């Protein structure tokens, strides 16, 4: 009888491949499984019942809402995702990259951002507001009208940068289509670029101080002046982070029906009530939105059509129309009825104390920022953590072994106490050395904190941290707090910040010099 070894050696790779096949088809005995965890034998009737249940559940989760479909070709290039989420994400990436390279504010200058992105800016009175076109090498030029008001110019430039976030932008000259020129679904693209403009003009770190105030029309106008941004940009940022239960919607008048329909809506993280207004929703004829026929015009009403049985308070504010449209768009700010003793719960608390001894009996996640190169925690809070919890450092080294996991945006978690998990966020590029600019990578921090939000939600844990990213990483607390609010607090996670001593000198993003000052001279 011949033996394989005599002629053919079966190697490790084949063994592993065959093992995979063997386990996959289970042509071998399975280990013992507790009978109680196995479901009882299924009969056909129950199987059919299960089929119907699964089908119903699937239909429920993917049920087509009455929201109109996105049809614009440029919007469809975003892929099989929610276009609003995707465009916000793309704008955010652009903003965070720019901030890492020294773009600072507020106010954040969209002219500078355009230049940083290699976009040429050309003032010309030939255009109404602004337009984008590209040359044969797909380099973009934004032509803008310098005669417009400064805030309008800033908004137009930010809007045009929004256009460049679409992959097909170079394929055609993008005009801010006039009302007459606008195709039926052109508003979809324009609306998404407005959302992108809001992300650009009001990036992280703005309006932190105002979040506990009630986000009414008055506050929107006040912040618009303060930050030189549009009402739409202010409302986008304000409502997304507000501690008040409310939502905002942007409505524009349909020429065909003379009624206002909702372009999009933004819901505050504190609002948990259901309501009827969604994209494409037509406001009733009786709605006072129709009285806001001038920019800056305001009105208000108690509306029973927002959700059944309850009267919501709505404030309306006329804001600038899409270029060439005769009627202003209307920003609606809707507030549900609240109990008289309602108070805003502040989800971000700042305490004086040692972050390594966080307060509270609930499960807690303690965050620290680590760099993408060192496997040993050698500085700042991490050094303190290494000394306090040596096993956490060992665990981290095991995880970081080979540095494959030390990718920016990854997180590592290890339990250091029954109720406390230490979470390391890989959000710093390199370590040591001075003068090479901040080492914090805001995009990575954002990605890592999104994972922390998942972890905190799953464990029902609160999050505790020192002022992460502001030590050796050189980040700006203002921006980092903005990211914390956007990723954690907007998802309902409670966050506590610890200062060893009271701080009045919070680090800010250092400014870098740019060669072109044209942008600043223009406005």
């Amino acid at each position, binding site marked *: 009888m011949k033996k394989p*070894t005599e002629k053919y050696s079966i190697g490790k790779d084949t063994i592993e491949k065959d093992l995979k096949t063997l386990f996959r088809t289970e042509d071998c005995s399975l280990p013992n499984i507790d009978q109680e965890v196995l479901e009882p034998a299924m009969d056909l009737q129950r199987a059919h019942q299960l089929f119907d249940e699964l089908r119903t559940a699937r239909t429920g989760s993917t049920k087509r809402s009455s929201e109109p479909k996105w049809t614009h070709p440029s919007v469809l290039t975003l892929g099989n995702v929610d276009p609003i989420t995707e465009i916000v994400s793309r704008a955010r990436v652009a903003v965070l990259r720019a901030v890492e390279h020294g773009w600072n504010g507020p106010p954040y200058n969209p002219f500078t951002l355009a230049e940083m992105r290699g976009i040429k800016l050309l003032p010309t009175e030939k255009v109404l507001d602004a337009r984008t076109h590209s040359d044969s090498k797909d380099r973009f030029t934004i032509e803008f009208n310098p005669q417009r008001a400064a805030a309008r110019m800033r908004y137009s430039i930010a809007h045009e940068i929004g256009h460049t976030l679409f992959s097909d932008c170079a394929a055609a000259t993008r005009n801010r289509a006039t009302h007459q020129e606008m195709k039926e679904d052109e508003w979809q693209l324009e609306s998404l670029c407005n959302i992108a403009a809001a992300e650009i003009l009001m990036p992280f770190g703005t309006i932190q101080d105002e979040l506990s105030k009630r986000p009414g029309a008055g506050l929107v106008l006040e912040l618009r002046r303060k930050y030189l941004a549009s009402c739409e940009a202010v409302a986008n940022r304000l409502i997304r982070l507000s501690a008040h239960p409310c939502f905002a919607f942007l409505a524009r008048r349909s020429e065909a029906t003379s009624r206002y329909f909702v372009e999009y809506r933004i819901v505050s993280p504190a609002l948990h009530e259901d309501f009827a207004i969604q994209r494409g929703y037509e406001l009733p004829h009786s709605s006072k939105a129709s009285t806001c026929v001038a920019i800056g015009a305001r009105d208000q009403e108690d509306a029973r059509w927002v959700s059944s049985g309850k009267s919501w308070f709505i404030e309306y504010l006329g804001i600038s129309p899409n270029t060439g449209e005769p009627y202003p768009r209307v920003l609606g700010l809707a507030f549900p009825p609240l109990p008289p003793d309602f108070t805003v719960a502040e989800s971000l608390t700042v305490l004086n104390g040692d972050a390594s001894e966080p307060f509270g009996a609930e499960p807690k996640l303690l965050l620290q920022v680590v760099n993408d190169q060192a496997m040993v925690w050698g500085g700042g809070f991490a050094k303190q953590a290494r000394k306090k919890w040596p096993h956490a450092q060992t665990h981290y080294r095991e995880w970081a072994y080979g540095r*494959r996991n030390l990718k920016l945006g990854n997180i590592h978690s290890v339990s250091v106490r029954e109720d406390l998990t230490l979470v390391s966020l890989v959000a710093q590029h390199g370590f040591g050395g001075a003068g090479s600019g901040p080492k914090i990578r805001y995009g990575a921090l954002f990605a890592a904190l999104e994972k922390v939000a998942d972890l905190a939600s799953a464990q029902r844990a609160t999050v505790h941290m020192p002022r992460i990213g502001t030590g050796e990483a050189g980040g700006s607390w203002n921006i980092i707090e903005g990211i914390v609010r956007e990723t954690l607090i907007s998802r309902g996670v409670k966050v506590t910040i610890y200062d060893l001593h009271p701080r009045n000198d919070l680090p800010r993003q250092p400014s870098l010099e740019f060669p072109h000052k044209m942008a600043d001279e223009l406005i």
Partner: protein
Amino acid sequence: MAPPCDDISDFELIRRMADERANFAEARDAWGHFYVRHHRFLLRVCMSYHKYVLGAEEVKDVVHQAFFKAFDGAKTFNHAEDCPIVIQERKSRGWLVQIAENLVRDRFRNQPEVSLLADGEIDQLPATTEGERDDNPVPESERLNLLKAGLILLSDVEQTVLRATMFWWQGDQQHQRMLHTALLELSKQVGKSPENIRQIRARAVRKLEKYVNENPHDEKAH
């Protein structure tokens, strides 16, 4: 009228599911039979692979979803192939396991992974990605029989480690990796450190390699 499903082959059931648009009632019925026929198998496989990291309830959910995905994906399955009933069963089950595997991987997508290779193994990785040739002259069925025999000789821990880690094994990868959380859970389950698990896995594969190369591959010998 279509014949009852009890005696119908797996491929025919899948064909009926694929034909959902033409006859939904028949497709639903075929799914029911397919489910009754294979769900205990898939549940056992998934429990043995994933219970330690997902928990029993989530594994059951994966199994249900896998069957439902099979209904949706029936059109993509090559049910027209002419092969014996036993092979049909093996292929159908392989397909189901693959669907479940994809579902589990989806649940852990973008989560950190760690190396499955022990220290010594990393050094021995060939410089190129060219692996072994697939044209091993020993027929696959014989190799599988040898492996089955070899597996029985391994300790319980070795078998558990192999089974759990092979789920993450990918044929096109030279440097095999697995989910960090899964490795930690496995580590807890068998009471060994992650590095020990890597060593146990390497040792188990070496034992199997030795076994299949030192034992006759003639099927008559078994």
